[in-house]
């Protein structure tokens, strides 16, 4: 495969206010080089504005070091939330991991 290496971070369960601090830390910890990041949301059962805030912060931190951050396998609920926030054009969004890996 000739594509550059990508690091995958998996979020799961309710990405909500209760887990906001953990989510933020986990995402920011992953941004430690120029590796491009993919956030796998396939196991996310619910996401709210606090989860979105962590992802926006991580996206900006990734951009700051010249990396990218894409979102993979969003549920209908998650996609809806990104659309409502008009962030579906800001984040690269991929339907599944093979598509994301070969993008």
């Amino acid at each position, binding site marked *: 495969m000739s594509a550059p290496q990508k690091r995958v971070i998996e979020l799961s369960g309710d990405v909500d*206010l209760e887990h906001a601090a953990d989510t933020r830390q986990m995402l920011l910890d992953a941004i430690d080089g120029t590796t491009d990041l993919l956030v796998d949301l396939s196991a996310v059962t619910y996401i*709210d*504005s606090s989860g979105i805030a962590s992802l926006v912060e991580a996206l*900006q931190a990734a951009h700051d070091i010249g990396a990218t951050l894409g979102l993979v396998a969003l549920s*209908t609920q998650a996609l*809806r*939330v990104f659309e409502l926030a008009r962030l579906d054009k800001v984040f690269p969004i991929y339907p599944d991991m093979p598509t994301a890996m070969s993008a």
Partner: protein
Amino acid sequence: MTGNSARSQLPSTDGNAAAEQLLLEIRFFAKPDRLKLIRPVVLAAARMCGFDEQGGQDIVLATDEACQNVIIHGYRGQPDKQITLTAYDIADGIQIRLRDTAPAADPAHIHPRDLDDIRPGGLGTHFMQAAMDDVVYLPAPGGVGNLLRLTKHLPRQP
């Protein structure tokens, strides 16, 4: 004592509309870990009022964001404060009311960030506006606190 609240009578309506029907009242402490208990009951109430899965999820999101704002901005994280949520079947939709005893909020200062100014935060009130038809901040009836009224109507039948 729990006994006190058991004996105060649930309102059958708040006096607004004859057609509205109280579905239930939930009281909980203003803590982030309680929201996962609130979401499923709001979804069930939305389904009971006739909303489809997507409509129900929008109502859940708006209610969750409203609770988050009370927890964060209203009570500033004090975990011993409480929120009272009531859900009404309003015949052509649903109304969710949230009451708190936080200092009176000024609706003029409650608004989302500019959606084009991309930064973390500032989206909760946007989700509430986008998901619901009507979002009204009122002083709590009878004094201390705030009453937030979230209303959504059913889509018209084709």
